[in-house]
């Protein structure tokens, strides 16, 4: 198996989970062997007491990374600088090793869709998004990475495939990638492209983290629902990636129908069977 290196010299944090409040008491009491926790950034951009207390306790025990859904990096509306300032303050306070968000837009015309809407993969969108990614990275003053989205429509006038767009975006903006293997699988099913070819095209040294998740089969298409076990086909794709680029910080996303912590932990440990891991990270 390859040894993984990335351009930023960032460590492989091993296997991690999203920090979800129903599990927090158990995590603090039992301190399970985990490489890191991922904060859903928006849950901690608050002055409310409880999330801040949780953050203070968890950051003493585990490395943290931040993952958001509201940056709207592909939007033609101006960047929400107030949101970005809050994001930077949270990153500074939590000591997050890196910050990520999605290749998508969420707001337009002053309205927020609260969804990760797909972009057309055109030269116009590429120039625009690359400039915004550079601006975000400069403002955050820490490593910032883009995650490939799952999508339910595509644009006939796209001039390049999604992975080609991402490759050029990374080259032109200097950013790296949070590779969501389930999203590749979902979008490949929905749009009829080859998931393995997509993954094979992503340079290993651009990837700093991997997401895995469950999805829902709706008969005609797949929905990225984060509410179930990772399917075998996605595990196979994950193994393919790890064999090629080496073990990378890997996280299971499970947000809806959240199971008890033991089920979630067991799901994460399956990653070790597929070559992921490096649980020897100090806690």
């Amino acid at each position, binding site marked *: 198996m390859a040894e993984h290196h990335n351009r930023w010299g960032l460590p492989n944090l091993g296997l991690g989970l999203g920090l979800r409040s129903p599990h927090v008491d158990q995590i603090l009491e039992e301190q399970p062997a985990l490489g890191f926790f991922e904060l859903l950034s928006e849950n901690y951009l608050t002055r409310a007491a409880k999330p801040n207390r949780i953050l203070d306790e968890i950051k003493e025990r585990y490395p943290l990374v931040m993952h958001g859904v509201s940056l709207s990096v592909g939007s033609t509306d101006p960047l929400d600088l107030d*949101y970005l300032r809050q994001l930077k303050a949270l990153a500074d306070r939590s000591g997050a090793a890196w910050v990520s968000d999605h290749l998508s837009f969420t707001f337009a015309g002053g*309205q927020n869709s609260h*969804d990760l809407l797909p972009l057309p993969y055109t030269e116009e969108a590429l120039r625009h998004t690359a400039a915004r990614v550079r601006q975000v990275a400069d403002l955050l003053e820490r490593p910032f990475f883009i995650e490939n989205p799952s999508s339910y429509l595509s644009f006939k006038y796209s001039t390049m495939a999604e992975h080609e767009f991402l490759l050029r975006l990374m080259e032109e903006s200097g950013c790296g990638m949070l590779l969501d293997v389930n999203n590749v699988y979902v979008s490949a099913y929905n749009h009829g492209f080859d998931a393995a070819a997509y993954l094979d095209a992503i340079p290993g040294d651009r990837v700093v983290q991997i997401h895995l998740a469950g999805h829902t089969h709706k008969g005609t298409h797949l929905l990225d629902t984060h509410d179930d076990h990772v399917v075998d086909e996605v595990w196979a794709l994950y193994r393919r990636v790890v064999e090629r680029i080496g073990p990378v910080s890997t996280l299971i996303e499970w947000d809806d129908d959240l199971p008890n912590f033991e089920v979630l932990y067991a799901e994460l440990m399956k990653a070790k069977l597929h070559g992921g891991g490096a649980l020897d990270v100090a806690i």
Partner: protein
Amino acid sequence: MSRSELPLAELQRWMVEVISHGPDVEHSLQRPVARELLRPDEVAALIKGPGPLGAVAGVGIYHRMYQLRLREALEIDFPALQAALGKERFLELANGYLEVHPSRSWTLNRLGDDWPAHLQKVAEPWIAELAQLELEQTLAIQSPASPRISPADLAQIPPDQFADAHLRPIPSLRLMVAEHDVLRLYLAYRDDQPLRPPAPERTRIAIYRGERTEQFGLLEAPFTMLQALAGGRSLGEAIEAAYPEPTEADAEELQASLADWTSRGLFAGVEL
């Protein structure tokens, strides 16, 4: 003539416009703002749906998710209102609100900020008041933590400085007046009791965050005094506002109120 592509900004405005309005995507495609950006008969030339689904069905997936997500956000923040109205009426009012108040913030925590004011125009008065009570609770939850003074701290104010002392309220303290007893209705919901539309009755309510979000009713004079303290007036000024000609009973009420408020932890500090 059909277009072969849309400028990025126009595409994004069209898409958010279409998914954020209407009972379904077919209706929202026909809205004038959407049609001006992209005619319904042009959609299939630009967009491809997932798998065997067409372009409109693909946009419809995002439309359904938007509608579900925003309604769910209101259900989470206004659970007593939903219980009191029933799901159908709640959804009818929520849909009407979201048509004219789409989300403009990155956080759904602020989605309901304008709902009580909107309900004042379109629904029975008690409905807007119950929504206001639940909105105040949401705002209390989102307030920052702060220290709290105890009854012992209050007792340490020197008698000669008592009238000029200022009691700084905790950030989560919220005060409201309703013309119906929506507090009783809310408490019935919380305690899983039968819910009935509230009777007309002026009700003064304090909401704050302790171990959990708390709410309690106040008589007129204590409410006036707490409102004056929360507004930055000194103890002497607040007492004067609430009890211009105090009787012995008023003095007892005043002392009992101060003891109750400090034991609840409603004040973050004393400024002499």
